[in-house]
């Protein structure tokens, strides 16, 4: 393995661990942006390394005669044998990850709803509410939710969901799903991004109704009103109880400007280190287009 392909990856992983550690101490909107950027940085650092490893492995495998030799040459990896275990794992994650990432984008596009937003009440016996992805910000509430909650509480749900729509949280959600599909190791970070998005919307709802405890109570009522616990389980400590606890605690103060600047500096520096990876692609481009 070439150190120039691994160093940016180690930097990006270190950044991911650091951001995982501090995201709760940041206001939710800032935490969301920091986590999303970190996920993109990890992908930029990891994808070229993964494909280079895969190609180098294939070039030295018995398949080499069947046409993989040229790509090893193109990437300049023909002199670096790759252990079989690493090669197979890398090829597997590269192919399955790409397929899953494409599927995540497709799901997002199928659900996209771009025409002007509206609110819809859907007949259903479980209390739930959600926002469709897209510019429109179409909000859906179930009839069980409108029966369960009084007007004030419904207003809180609507304020929460419109915050998702207004701040285009679907884009952050898409980043979370595409990157964690491509690289399964990013799943804990994706869960943190989703948590930060919910916290962001909770705080917007709290500002609009002026009482954080009311928002906490509404969250709890809807969550406990669901009689099925099936579905997507949340990561421990990142579910509804954590959001309620955060609303009952004093709001997170925005850190000093210097600290925020330092954090972005580290993220941007790691991003540059990761972008350096992309120079490996220039070898491929020149191999494909000799002129």
């Amino acid at each position, binding site marked *: 393995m070439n150190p120039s392909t691994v160093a940016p990856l180690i930097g990006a992983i270190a950044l991911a661990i650091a951001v995982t550690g501090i995201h709760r101490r940041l206001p939710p909107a800032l935490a969301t942006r920091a986590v999303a950027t970190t996920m993109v940085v990890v992908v930029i650092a990891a994808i070229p390394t993964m494909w280079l490893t895969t190609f180098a492995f294939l070039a030295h495998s018995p398949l080499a005669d069947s046409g993989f030799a040229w790509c090893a040459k193109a990437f300049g990896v023909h002199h670096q044998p790759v252990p079989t275990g690493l090669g197979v794992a890398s090829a597997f994650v590269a192919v399955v990850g790409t397929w899953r990432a494409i*599927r*995540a984008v*497709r*799901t*997002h*596009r*199928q*659900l*996209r*709803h771009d*025409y002007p937003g*509206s609110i*819809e009440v*859907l007949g*259903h016996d479980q209390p*739930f*509410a*959600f*926002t*469709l*992805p897209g510019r429109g910000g*179409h909000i*859906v509430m179930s009839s069980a*939710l409108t029966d369960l909650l009084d007007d004030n509480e419904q207003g809180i*749900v609507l304020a*929460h*969901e419109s915050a*998702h729509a207004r701040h285009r*949280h*679907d884009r952050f*959600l*898409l980043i979370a*799903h595409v990157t964690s599909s491509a690289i399964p190791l990013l799943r804990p970070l994706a869960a943190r991004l989703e948590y930060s*998005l*919910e916290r962001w*919307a909770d705080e917007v709802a709290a500002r609009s109704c002026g009482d954080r*405890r009311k928002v*906490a*109570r509404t*969250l*709890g009522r*809807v*969550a*406990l009103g*669901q009689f*099925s*616990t*099936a*579905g*997507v*389980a*949340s990561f421990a400590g990142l*579910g*509804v*109880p954590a959001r*309620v*606890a955060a609303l*009952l605690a004093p709001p997170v103060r925005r850190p000093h400007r210097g600290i925020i600047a330092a954090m972005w500096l580290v993220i941007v520096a790691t991003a540059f280190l990761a972008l350096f990876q992309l120079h490996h692609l220039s070898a491929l481009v020149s191999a494909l287009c000799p002129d």
Partner: protein
Amino acid sequence: MSRRPDGALETDIMKVLWRADRPLQPAEVNEHLDQGLAYTTVATVLGRLTAKGLVERTEAGRAYAYSAAVPEAALAGRRIAEVLEATPDRREALSWFVGSLSAKDARALRRLLDGLEQT
């Protein structure tokens, strides 16, 4: 032109039909779409929408004319019903007010809310 998923074209065609004040023939739909599509592409998708019951077909001379069979809001409702029955990865693409609770989460939540009622 980049390839778009079929669902997007279906939605675009539905939008044309919703905006139209009379049934449209495939060529007219294609004109309104203005995406440089082949006539057959539009006719195929219209056929599929008819089969799904989203579009109604009436005879107009030698060709058929099409109009929307469902109001705009109902389509969203239909997609939502699909989402609710669908796999986790469709549910994950939406912003939900609350996610589902594990039994442990539910206990933790009750404790928090009990504390809230007593103060």
